Structure formats: C-alpha cells, structure tokens
C-alpha cells in the first residue's frame, strides 16, 4: 500500500520521473483524513454491510438481538448519516432536522391511506416531500451562518411542530396522530385487487414487520451509507469540506457557496425524510412529537457521540443512543440485583443503590455522562477513540508498514 495516494494507472500515465508517495508520510489530522482509495472504500462498504446484516447475531448477547430495536438502529443510523452530510461535511449545525423526520412520517402514512400499503411508494413520497420542505426551510435559514443559522432552523422546526398540533390538524390529525384504518381509499391496492386488510406496510407482498422489517431497513441503511460515501469522496463533498474549513476563501476562489450549502441541506433533509418514512413503515403511525426539538437535539448528540464528519461515526452514535434509550431504560432494580448477584450481600445492595439512578428512567443520566466523557476526552467522538486505539496497536507491532493506511473513516 505504498501508493495509496493514486491508483496505479494514474501513476503510469503521470509523474514520470517523480517518485510518488514513496517514503512519504502525511502529517497532521485533516478534516477528511487522507484521501482514501476506492479499493479501501469498497472494503469498508463490504465490512459495513456484513456487520449490519449480522447484527441480529452479534448484538444478541447484549440483549439487542430483536427486530424492534435493530430497526431503530438502522432508521436512526440513516437519519444521522444524512444529518452528518450537512453538519459533519459543511459545518452547518441544524437544530431542526426533526421537522423533516416528522414530515417524512406524515407523508408516508398519507400514501398508505390514499394509494397503497406498498412501502416503496410511501418512501419515495416521504423523501420528495421532506426534500421540498428542506428546500424551503434551507433557502431561508441559509441566509445566515453560525449560531443564527442554528436558531433559524430550530425556529422553523418548532413552528412545524406547533402547526401540526393546530392549523394543520386536518393533515396531521393533531394529538391523536395520523393512522391507517380499514376505511382508507388505498386506490392502487383496490385497483390491483390486493387490499392489505391488516393495514401492514409491505414490500411487494412481503409484510414489513419483525425480521423482514429489519432487513428492509438494514438494506436501505447500507444503500444510504454507500451514497454518503460517494458524496464524501465526490467533488461536491470536497466543496462542502472546503466551506467548513474556510468559507471566505471559497468565495474569493470563485464559488457561490450558498447553493452548495442548500444542496447539502436538501440532501440531508431527504435522508431524514427516508428515516421518517421508515418509522412509518415499521409502525404505520405518525405523531407530531417526532418533530419536537428534543428529537432534533437527539440527532446532534448521535453525530457528535459517534464522530462528526466521519462516515461510520453517526451510525455508531445512533446505535449507542438507541441502545441506551431502549435497553437501559428497561433495567429495573430486579435486573441490577441479578447483575450484582456474585457480590456479597452488603456490597450487592451498595452497588444496586449507586447504579440504580443511571438505569430505568434515569437512562438519560447515563447518556449525559457518556456524552460529557466523549466530548471532553474524545472530541472526535467514538471514531476518534477507535482511531487512537488502532494507531497504538499499529505502533505496537513495530511499524512494519511504511505507509500508514490512514483513511479517515
């Protein structure tokens, strides 16, 4: 891997007389790390796909081997991946992305009601509607940058949330939430004589509940990951990283930065729409609470926890958060007693007493602590921790490889 900078054919056609990349080490840590080769990208994609599809096996020992939670990992992984395209790549922190998540859910449920229980139609519509919505909000919010941009997005999201409860009740069904029912027209289903009586979303006949539901979400997550990877390495991706690094220079270099940012905003809004649509697919119900600011804050936390601007980080951050939310919140004193069963009685009581505030309803305390620890000690998120460990590991082996395979995943 001594020529990790270029593909071999490029080396042949160019750089005659130069000695590319030999004995040559990149210094410092960049936003994008080292430009990765396409081979290592596809290797990463393959490993990622394998890891996602086998989650039911390797996550079973920690109690997460059931479809409901794994679906959540995948869906919020998509949400965070898209959010990272805006926040991680271009540096613009949106505090209102839950608006697009909610919009996606509503759009999908409306498709279930009007046209068909087929998930594909619902998801396409969810992505389109969220994209259009993002175009409008982004167009206005991107007139400002920094904290003002964040506040504008937050204001828009809260506005959407309140509208869903008030003026837009005919569309959102207010506090009850939007649901499918037997009396829905479902025009396409009736036309083709396949009315899904049970009101379960399907993928051309496969009901998307339980394991099929998880695998459907997982495949979409892998696709979303692949697209994000392409964007990251593309010219467009490079421009976003350049805007994050020095927007002034971008202007004086001849780029109209706002359209680039708007494109990133819309793309990440579409990811959120897809995630929102998938939430409706796995459970055909849409409520306005999905648009609340806490949901917007959640995706920010996921991204920072995992590693801003990295490829894998947001997915890992989403999984960690959903795990804490689903599993830790279900722990009670009984579980703790069993966990510390091996200790002498007094010590067991003591351990249960000091750990019980961190589980059950107190799971957010654990999350808060974890978040603090990560931000203070690993500003680059969990991915930075992984990178540090792998560096140490590599150094421990005595630096046999001359060229570091620093690829910034």
């Amino acid at each position, binding site marked *: 891997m001594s020529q990790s900078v270029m593909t071999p054919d490029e080396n042949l056609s*160019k750089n005659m007389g130069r000695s590319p990349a030999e004995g040559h080490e990149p210094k410092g840590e960049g936003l*994008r790390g080292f430009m990765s080769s396409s081979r290592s990208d596809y290797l990463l994609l393959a490993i990622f796909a394998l890891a996602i599809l086998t989650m039911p096996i390797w996550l079973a020992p920690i109690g997460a081997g059931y479809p409901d939670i794994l679906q959540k990992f995948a869906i919020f992984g998509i949400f965070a991946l898209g959010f990272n395209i805006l926040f991680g790549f271009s540096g613009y922190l949106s505090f209102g992305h839950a608006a697009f998540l909610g919009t996606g859910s509503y759009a999908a449920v409306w498709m279930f009601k009007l046209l068909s229980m087929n998930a594909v139609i619902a998801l396409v519509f969810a992505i389109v509607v969220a994209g259009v919505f993002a175009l409008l909000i982004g167009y206005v919010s991107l007139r400002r940058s920094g904290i003002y941009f964040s506040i504008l997005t937050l204001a828009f999201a809260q506005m959407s949330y309140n509208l869903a409860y008030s003026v837009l009740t005919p569309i959102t069904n207010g506090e009850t939430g939007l649901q499918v029912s037997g009396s829905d027209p479902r025009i396409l289903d009736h036309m083709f004589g396949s009315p899904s009586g049970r009101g379960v979303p399907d993928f051309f006949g496969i009901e998307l509940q339980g394991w099929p539901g998880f695998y459907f979400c997982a495949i979409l997550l892998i696709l979303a990951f692949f697209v994000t990877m392409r964007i990251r390495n593309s010219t467009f991706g*490079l421009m976003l990283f350049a805007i994050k690094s020095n927007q002034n220079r971008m202007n*004086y*270099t*001849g780029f*109209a930065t706002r359209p680039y940012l708007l494109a990133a905003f819309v793309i990440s809004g579409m990811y959120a729409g897809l995630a929102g649509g998938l939430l409706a697919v796995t459970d055909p119900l849409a409520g306005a609470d999905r648009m609340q600011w806490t949901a917007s804050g959640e995706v920010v936390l996921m991204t920072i926890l995992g590693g801003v601007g990295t490829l894998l980080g947001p997915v890992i951050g989403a999984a960690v958060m959903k795990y804490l939310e689903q599993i830790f919140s279900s722990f009670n004193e009984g579980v703790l007693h069993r966990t510390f069963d091996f200790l002498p009685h007094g010590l067991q009581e003591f351990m249960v007493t000091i750990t019980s505030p961190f589980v059950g309803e107190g799971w957010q305390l654990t999350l808060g602590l974890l978040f603090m620890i990560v931000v203070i000690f690993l500003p680059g998120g969990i991915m930075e921790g992984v990178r540090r460990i792998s560096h140490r590991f590599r150094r421990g082996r005595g630096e046999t490889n001359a060229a570091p395979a620093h690829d910034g995943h």
Partner: protein
Amino acid sequence: MTSEILSIKGVSKRFGGLRALDDVNLGVRQGSVHAIIGPNGAGKSTLLNCLVGRITPDEGSVTFDGGSLLGHKPHQINQAGIARVFQTPEIFGELSVMENVMIPAFARKDGAFRINAWGRARERGEVRDEAEHILDDLNLWSQRDQIVNSMSRGDKRRLELAMCLVQHPKLLLLDEPTAGMSRADTNNTVDLLKKIAERGVTKVIIEHDMHVVFSLADKVSVMAQGTVIAEGTPEEIKASPKVQEAYLGGAHL
C-alpha cells in the same frame, strides 16, 4: 500594448466620519506589475477590498477587462479573472495541500456552482494535472499530502500563491506577500514573483518592503490619507521629493 486591464476612477469610501478612500484614480496596464505603497492607514487594503467585492465604494467606478466590477459578489469577481493573496493566508487549513490547490482549479473548470456528488474528486484528471503542475512549479510537490495547518508560515503563503496561480488569473492581487518574512524568505518570494511575472500575469502588489517593490514593480503608486499622491516608475518615485516627504519621512533611499 498599453491598454489598461484595470482602471479605478474617482473611487471614494467613507466609514462613518472617516474618509478611507478619497477620489482614488489608478490605472493598471495589461501585463505590468503595479505596486501600491504608503503608510499604514493610507487605504491600500481598503482599495483592494473594493476590487474583490468585499466592500462597495460610495462613489466612482472600477472597470476590469471591459466590464464594471461594482455590485458583483466576490465569487463573480473571481470568475471574471481576479485572484487575491491575503495578508494572512486564507487557505483550507484542515485539508491537504493537493486538495487546497485542486479546489481553485475546480472553480476554473466547473464555474461557481456545479454539483457532482458521485464522481470522485481526485479522479478528475484535468484538475489533478493542473494542480500537480502548479505544485511542482512552486516547490510544494513533496508536501502535497500534508495537512495545511501543519505547514510553516512561508509554505502557507506559497500555497496560497499556488491556489491563485492554478486559476490562471488575468489579474493577481497580492497584499503584503512578504510581511513578517525573514530576509531569505523574502528573497525567495521575490524570485518566485519574478518567475511568475515572466508569464505575463498582471499584478497589483501592496508592499512595505522597498527592496521588494523596487525589484519587482514596473510602476508604483503612492497612497497617503486615502488618496494617490504620486505615481511613476520606481526610479521616479525614488527621486520624488514629495514622496520622500510624505511617506519615507525624508530618508534617503
């Protein structure tokens, strides 16, 4: 031969009560190196800011290559062919040297906005060629994969120059390119700028170092208190008693 690529006529700019620019007239000939000198606060950088669209003058006109520059955004002005090197390098600190040079090359090839979210940036052959060429030229080839933040100050300045040159600008604006440099670095920069001058890129250069000015410039304008007080060849400026009085404090050069 003697056509003006840039002409500034009657430009004034006020900031509150301060007259930063007061009826500035300046013409830059195609292919020349035009130096602007003057004491701090004379309005040199303000004038440069008017040229790149950072600020809009209150009065006057700025014509470049047959069209007016006024009312255009910085990116439009760059696309028209003006590149600027800043007093403190404006570069992409977190990206690699290669990426830093490829980005401006993309601006030249793809224009102000074009989305290519699929093709790999580093596999755009023409852009890579340009970038590699300029890195080779400016002795940055061996550092091409280095993250810019970890480079020395002098290298950063050279990189910013490379970023401007890769765009093949019609007009290059240099704001104190040797400020804070050692004598040796200054000499290297002068040699480099001379090398570029041979290619016929028109340059406007703001500089305090008289050695640099007199070894590079074809023409010198002296600014003081927001206006041009003298203009001429380096020899004329050196000899002008008015300039020595106003700017050089009477010191003999």
